[in-house]
């Protein structure tokens, strides 16, 4: 076992004996610190462990900065397909824990789709390994993908193997049009052979991004080529809102008609950002104030399953709950 992992395991075991609750912290760029929990930092546990461009796999310690990962990949003309948002100092471990995926999600898939394996410490400080470095692997339950989004509540993930993809050239186009028309159009385009990697509506424009060789777009009426900046604006999306207004993230079916208060449509229609004082009436709504609070809208049955799984990984309740 690596020395830093050993130290982390010892901290977990000590917390267990002292009945302490641990909050796992990476770059401290996302989830705010909780006063009642002790910080377990993975900052020191960083670095790329192996990278075989031809195998399309990179393995890194959880504390590795996203920026470092992306730079190393770019040198070999590769990238993380899921376009994780950069909150400043973000680590791959924290990004995985929050399961954050950028605008290419409807086209290239989400973070967990690219997770091939993890090494982790469970609530007893045991070092466990799930999955591996293989693109295809169906031996045992897919724990590595399941824990994406667990926000440090189940185990301390120390190492991640991710599938990477070739860096592609992308061009962004936009058309000025009403939101409701844009929602239909983006869904229509996604059903054609145009190689899309982004489709959004923001500030009165429908934006779409195309990968690689593709038919000329700007000969169509109203279409103009623009730079790729809008995707950074939307990922992470941090609009300035008037006092009293809150930002809500809605996950909906991509063809859902316009929703009141929407200030941006992302993910080819399946994500709506709504600014409003009150919580919009929708099944999948999250208050998005950058505290990454869980939604807590599971039914009783699913709640019970999640509690049960928490006990499997963390029987002594060492890791902070969501």
């Amino acid at each position: 076992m690596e020395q830093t992992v050993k130290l982390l395991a010892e901290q977990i075991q000590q917390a267990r004996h002292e009945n302490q609750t641990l909050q796992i912290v990476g770059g401290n760029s996302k989830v705010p610190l909780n006063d009642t929990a002790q910080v377990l930092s993975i900052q020191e546990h960083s670095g790329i462990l192996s990278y075989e461009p031809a195998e399309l796999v990179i393995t890194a310690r959880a504390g590795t900065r996203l920026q470092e990962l992306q730079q190393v990949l770019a040198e070999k003309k590769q990238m993380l397909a899921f376009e994780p948002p950069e909150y400043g100092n973000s680590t791959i471990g924290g990004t995985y824990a929050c399961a954050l995926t950028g605008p290419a999600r409807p086209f290239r898939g989400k973070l967990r789709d690219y997770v091939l394996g993890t090494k982790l410490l469970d609530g007893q400080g045991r070092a466990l390994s799930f999955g591996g470095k293989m693109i295809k692997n169906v031996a045992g339950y897919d724990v590595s993908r399941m824990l994406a989004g667990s926000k440090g509540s189940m185990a301390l993930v120390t190492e991640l193997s991710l599938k990477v993809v070739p860096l592609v050239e992308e061009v962004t186009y936009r058309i000025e049009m009403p939101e409701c028309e844009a929602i239909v159009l983006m869904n229509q385009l996604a059903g054609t052979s145009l190689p899309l990697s982004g489709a959004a509506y923001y500030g009165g424009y429908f934006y779409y991004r195309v990968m690689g060789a593709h038919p000329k777009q700007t000969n169509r009426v109203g279409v103009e080529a623009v730079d790729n900046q809008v995707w950074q604006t939307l990922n992470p999306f941090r609009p300035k809102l008037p006092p009293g207004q809150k930002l809500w993230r809605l996950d909906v079916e991509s063809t859902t008609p316009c929703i009141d208060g929407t200030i941006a449509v992302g993910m080819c229609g399946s994500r709506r950002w709504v600014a409003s004082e009150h919580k919009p009436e929708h099944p999948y709504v999250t208050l998005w104030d950058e505290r990454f609070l869980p939604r807590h809208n599971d039914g009783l049955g699913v709640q019970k399953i999640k509690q049960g799984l928490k006990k499997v990984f963390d029987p002594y309740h060492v890791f902070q709950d969501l």
Partner: protein
Amino acid sequence: MQVVQALQQALPNTSVLTSEEACRPYECDALSAYREKPLAVVLPENIDQVKRVLQICKAHQTPVITRGSGTGLAGGALPLKEGIVLGLSKLNKILKIDPLQRIAVVEPGVRNIQVTQAVEPFGLYYAPDPSSQIACSIGGNVAENSGGVHCLKYGLTVHNVTSIRVLNMAGEEYVFDEKDDGIDLLALLNGSEGLLGVIVEIKLKLLPKPEAAQLVMAAFSCVKACAEAVTAVLQEGIIPAGLEMMDRFSIQAAEDFAKVGYPTDAQALLLCEVDGSHDQVQVDAQRVAEILTGQGAYQIRVSQNERERTALWQGRKNAFPAVGRYSPDYYCMDGTIPRSQLAYVLEEIAKLSQKYDLRVANVFHAGDGNLHPLILYDANQPGQLQRTEAFGCDILNLCVDVGGTITGEHGVGVEKLNSMCHQYQGDELEIFHGIKAVFDDTGLLNPGKAVPTLHRCAELGQMHVHKGQLPFAHLERF
């Protein structure tokens, strides 16, 4: 049997099979070396009936083995003597197609190919295409997290399912959706081999049909050069839609069977398909041909039309039955390895082939490192099945030892329980059993499959000392 009576009372007559004859087709899945007659085979017609079956079995403490089309290759649907088989083939309706949203909602018994056929008029298709796609069911695909030749580019089943409805042993219903918050239970259920729940409805992602596709066939006089050529293609930033490699035995068998014009003097053959927009395909196909030539391919053929492309695939797609003609039985393995290890692994397999005195042909999903050695044997010759199993087990251990895995797409089932002991340690297995218990505290859903007991692994560990001639056959299969 009380449980059978209860099932007969609860379901229509035609939905409960008990006679020897009626049950026979359900005695095994596509891993036909293992057979067992269940107490009964139950074929419910709707979800309410499935619920009742589960409740009755729970009340009678009767194991339930869920089955789709029975095309699984790892014995995942092998019945238990004291259990019932829950066949979902009558739940075969496509419930919804939304072309604008690009989704289809289907019942679990719908066959894989049916989805693509049904959405074709909209210019869409369902991407995962296991070789059994004309027969295998979507429910089974989810349970096994099935792959196919196109999964390097388009993903496995887990990447193409957005929501599922699942029943537990009490008949209670859960929905796991990609929009859910927190841990990813949808991902967990994919590939859970029927141990965590009964999947009764699936929402699938549909993709636009690629505008064009072209196949590049390349012949190599050395396996290593072929493997390196694959690496070169991927390093160039091209993700082929399909990237298949065959060894000499497979090439000859396939050509003999399908007569498609494969060069039978080649040591290795590569089939590389690129797809996408017309513009991109033209660029990519030419680039692939150049790369492969640069890597030493001595013969290159680029498909010029759809007919030629389909014809060139025919050999590869028929490789299993083609090889099967050389022997009464064959046993298909499913290890995955880093591509850099391919030449070494093939050499080692050749050595093992001599050691066990059994012939082997290799076909390889080269893009994602998934190797399918086909071991030829004759089940009627005493000892050959056992030798085949030991050979297979050695191959899987070899895969794990070079950093790979024992199963890329077929699942563990009953077949690879021993190999699971080689891949996972006790603590991980304990977690797996813990997960199972959370979803199924009765332990009645497909018991004994996919995850070996710690006891079994311990026994095997002792026996590994005498490696060489393991009498696997006498081991209790739990």
